[in-house]
């Protein structure tokens, strides 16, 4: 985004904005994190178990097949060489061959990844508007009876483990006379997902219920904070109608912390999605991970965990970028240090409040 032109002749001509330099630094940080993650995944799956081949084949496997598998996975080479080969092939998109089905992991995961993305997109598309409306309206009715009751309900939802909510929905919808929606999401792989959206409803609903409390309470809190600030008082004194103050003056400011909130919600959702997918038999990467673990399909486990964690790194990166671009003070900052010093919006959640994720 271009810097605003300043009517000062001594000012240097437009140069690259400071946020670009900040972003490059942030990108480097993200890449470094991604590299360490690859190291952790590799160590946990291949270096830490004394013999991965034995883990895969079980304790009673004959020595011959263990040796074959070791050769097949390259486990007989030095550990550093193993890591470099694994990293190299992962970087070129070659995720190995699934031990369970003998198909390339990338092919199996491609479609399933799309299903999980559709699930997460559905949840975000439902939760963000609802949390926004609910948070704002609760902030405007602060301390009223509605507010107190809604907060207790939200705390109840927040405390209930997500998989229990999912099981509750299954229980409700698998009852006789309740065949409005399918309680199990066995998709037909030949049909497009858009034609079988009814299978998405319950998983999306279950995940949304567990994701809603955190975001709603966050929007409510930052709305209350924004409504108490001086510029709102000034706007009221100037006779600006209340709806305009709420939607045009306060909400944009209150929303910036919510970007980080959405990023955090996505991170916790990924764990929850795994359970929800298993409960509803939804064919996403969560069910794949679950069955890969049960089948001890090492390349599959490595690929899925790597994919998920890199996804989280990417989400965090995008959230930080969005925050900087949407905060005028950060966007037009002239020096990188100003972004670092002023990044109240991208100040992580743990420094702002003592309570963590939902």
């Amino acid at each position, binding site marked *: 985004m271009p810097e605003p032109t300043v009517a000062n002749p001594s000012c240097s001509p437009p140069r690259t904005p400071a946020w670009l330099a900040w972003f490059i630094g942030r990108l480097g940080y993200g890449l470094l*994190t991604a590299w*360490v993650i690859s190291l*952790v*995944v590799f160590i*946990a*799956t291949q270096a*830490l*178990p004394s013999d991965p081949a034995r*883990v895969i084949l079980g304790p009673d496997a004959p020595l011959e097949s263990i040796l074959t598998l070791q050769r097949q996975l390259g486990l007989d080479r030095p550990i550093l060489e193993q890591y470099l080969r694994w990293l190299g092939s992962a970087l070129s998109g070659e995720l190995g061959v699934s031990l369970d089905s003998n198909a390339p992991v990338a092919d199996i995961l491609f479609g399933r990844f799309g299903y999980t993305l559709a699930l997460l997109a559905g949840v975000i598309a439902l939760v963000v508007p609802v949390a926004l409306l609910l948070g704002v309206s609760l902030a405007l009715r602060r*301390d009223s009876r509605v507010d107190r009751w809604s*907060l207790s309900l939200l*705390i*109840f939802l*927040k*405390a*209930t*483990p*997500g*998989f*229990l909510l999912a*099981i*509750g929905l*299954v*229980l409700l919808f*698998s*009852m*006789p006379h309740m065949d409005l929606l399918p309680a199990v999401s066995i998709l037909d792989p030949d049909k497009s997902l858009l034609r079988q959206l009814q299978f998405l409803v319950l998983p999306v609903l279950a995940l949304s219920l567990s994701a809603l409390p*955190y975001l709603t*309470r*966050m929007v*409510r*809190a*930052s709305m209350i*904070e924004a409504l108490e600030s001086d510029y709102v008082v000034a706007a009221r004194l100037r006779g600006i109608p209340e709806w305009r103050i709420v939607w045009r003056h306060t909400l944009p400011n209150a929303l910036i912390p919510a970007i980080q*909130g959405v990023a955090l919600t996505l*991170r*916790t959702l*990924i*764990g*929850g999605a*795994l*359970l929800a997918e*298993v409960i509803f038999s939804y064919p996403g990467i969560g069910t794949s*991970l679950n069955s890969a*673990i049960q089948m001890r399909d090492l390349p599959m*486990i490595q690929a899925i*965990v790597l994919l*998920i*964690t890199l996804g*989280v*790194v990417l989400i*965090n990166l995008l959230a930080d970028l969005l925050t900087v671009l949407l905060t005028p003070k950060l966007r037009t900052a002239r020096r990188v240090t100003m972004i670092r010093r002023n990044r109240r919006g991208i100040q*992580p959640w*743990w*420094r702002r*409040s*003592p*309570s*963590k*994720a939902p």
Partner: protein
Amino acid sequence: MTDVSSARWQRWLAEPQTRKGALITLLLVALALFGPWLAPHAPTDMLGQVYGAPSAAAPLGYDFLGHDVLSRLLSGGLSVLWMSVAAAAIALLVGSALGLLAGFSRRRLDQLITWLADVSLAFPDLILVLLIVSMLGRAPWLIVLTVAIAFTPGVIRLARGSAVAVAGQEFVEAAQMMGYSRRRILLREILPNILTPLLVHFGNMLTWGVGMLSGLSFLGYGVAPPTADWGLMINENQAGLLVQPWAVLAPAVLIGVFAYGTNILAEGIGRSSSRIGDKQP
């Protein structure tokens, strides 16, 4: 010191939410601790029909192998309880030690610890635990340890953030000027002042721990059958959901109530202690 802590207790208990949460949590803890004695039968005795309906002999019916659901329910709380408490306690101790260390060491170490916490936060908790448990086995201590590892980065960041905020206040400067050692300042001046947020976080960790551990058992990676465990019971009896819903419903309700109790407790303590009150998300 005792005056301060008793005043703190009174302030916490003045909040109705804290009392409610403490009551629920204590009831569930008592149920989990003394349940095995109260159980009418051994949790692994096969007494009735598979998915037998509730009767006078078995108020909650029988499960997928004909075990008495009530007996399994009473015996199955202990594992969730001790494992979540142990995991949260380890995370609290290690995390606050590392967080304090990060907040009060030179920049390099601080950045290193913060960054490592960042890296491990890229692993969704459940995925990290699943990865380690599936690779290294499902011994209870290993599960506790991995859940603790998953929880530690959050504690590190919380402890570091609140310690840095406290360190700027006058009484810490005064202690520094009086020449107190760094350790004394950390343990006697700063730690008591960040105890409340840490305690609230501990309550939250218990809630997540209960959810995560029962979720792990539900997926089949937790306590090994035939041991009774609430999460495992849900998993085992899922097939008979329509025939004998109590075998699934009863453990699910208890897990939910336990998680709710610890959460309400944490909320109450947090609310009574923070000046901004219900503003915090």
